[in-house]
């Protein structure tokens, strides 16, 4: 896994290859039939100080584009959208007590949920790290 620094308007954001990205600043890691999802370093730097998280229920069905989690930061509140259709098979309950993991380690311990994919074809609509870098670059 390689990390790249991208200069955005207000700060330097880290992106990682091997991940796919959304227009709404989520990342997706594909793990044999499953998609693990979190928010990007750019997103956490925009939100700053995340102090609360509402997570989806394990076992619930989601469609691509559904709002599935809520991030409460000191500054504002943000929704996290599922980039794929399927069943939520894992949620990161550590975030309930340690929401700061989203700020400290957005691509690692700050993951939010994982979806078992109904339609792996949807992944083709996501962005590569190069395209995402273009989107957030100043």
């Amino acid at each position: 896994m390689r990390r790249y620094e991208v200069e955005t308007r207000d700060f330097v954001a880290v992106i990682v290859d091997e991940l796919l990205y959304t227009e709404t600043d989520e990342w997706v890691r594909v793990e044999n039939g499953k998609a693990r999802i979190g928010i990007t370093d750019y997103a956490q730097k925009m939100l700053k100080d995340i102090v609360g998280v509402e997570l989806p229920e394990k076992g619930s069905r989601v469609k691509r584009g559904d709002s599935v989690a809520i991030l409460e930061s000191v500054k504002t509140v943000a929704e996290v959208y599922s980039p794929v259709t399927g069943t939520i098979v894992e949620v990161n309950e550590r975030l309930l007590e340690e929401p700061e993991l989203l700020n400290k380690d957005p691509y690692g311990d700050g993951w939010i949920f994982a979806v078992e994919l109904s339609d792996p074809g949807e992944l083709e609509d996501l962005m590569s790290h190069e395209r995402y870098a273009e989107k957030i670059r100043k």
Partner: protein
Amino acid sequence: MAARSIPLEDLHRSIGASFGEFAGWKVPMSYTSTLEEHMAVRKDVGVFDISHMGRVAVKGPDALDLLEKIYTKKISKTKTGFLSGPTLALNTHARVKDDEMLYRISDDEWLLVPNAAAREAMIRHLKSVALQESYSVEVIDHTSDYSMLAIQGPRAIHVMEKLSKDAASLKPLEFQVNVTLGTARVFLVSRSGWTGEDGFEVWARHGDARKLLEELVSRYGVKPAGIAARDTLRIEAGFVLGGHEYGEDPTVFPCAVSLRYGLGAIDWSKKGYIGEPALRACRREGARWVRVGIVMKKKHARVIPRQGTKVVVEGIDVGWVTSGTFSPVIGRGVAQAYVDSRYALIGETIEVHVRGRLYEAKISEFPLVPLPSK
């Protein structure tokens, strides 16, 4: 219209500020993290650049008469060399134009610090009342002449002891002019602030403010803190802000009595100021709304009731949140709200309506966290 820059913007950028807009000014929002900056002020010491606030002088033989006509406190009781403590300027509906402190330089020379959003309106108001009453007084806007820094937190006094013995010996609300702080020569230093902590506020020419800020940060380890932390600190402390807890529109904001400002901001024995008849009428009728604190219950600790959130009791809307945030000190969502006086029972459980759900919270007295007593 582009936001107005504060004079030391480049210095703030070099020490890591990210900027945002507030009341038409481009101001440092935060440097590292709002939570860290907040805790530095509560446990150690932080410094804010508050140059976006107004700095106005009122001078002339009738200066005191003008101020008595405008503010709800007996301004004549303020001693020379002291700040008045918070007081309110009202409109004729007894709604608040601004909350301010006044500095008595001498009998006929006063300074005041309007909030950024109210500065122009307050200058116009002061001038028009002076004209109407034929007062001999000058109102001078010094906002761009000085920068203003606030050094706040329990260690502020120890830092000040190193910079100036004289300034460190100031009593609460006392000020001195023409003081040397370390290598900076500053116009004014006062023992005051807006965080609920002990601290000092400084007016200085920009070059001296730059020297002072650099010295505070690099030599004394004072943490730069942004306006986002300033807001979370004032919410915990129970201090009010225009556009949130007060404003001039009587269809939006309750009468000033409902603020329960305390701190002697309103002196009921005082007569003859603008808004007094309406204020007494509100008091006679009894307050319909009461400003109270709200603290989320433990099981919903991380829910933040933000401005506009409804307050609910037994399914009835009984009030609305005016400011809300996450308190890093107690680890809960906290807020200020106006609640119908029949339901504004300190210590009782209410609910807040956040994203379509009701969450339990408690009505609490200010301050919402323990603060040092003055």
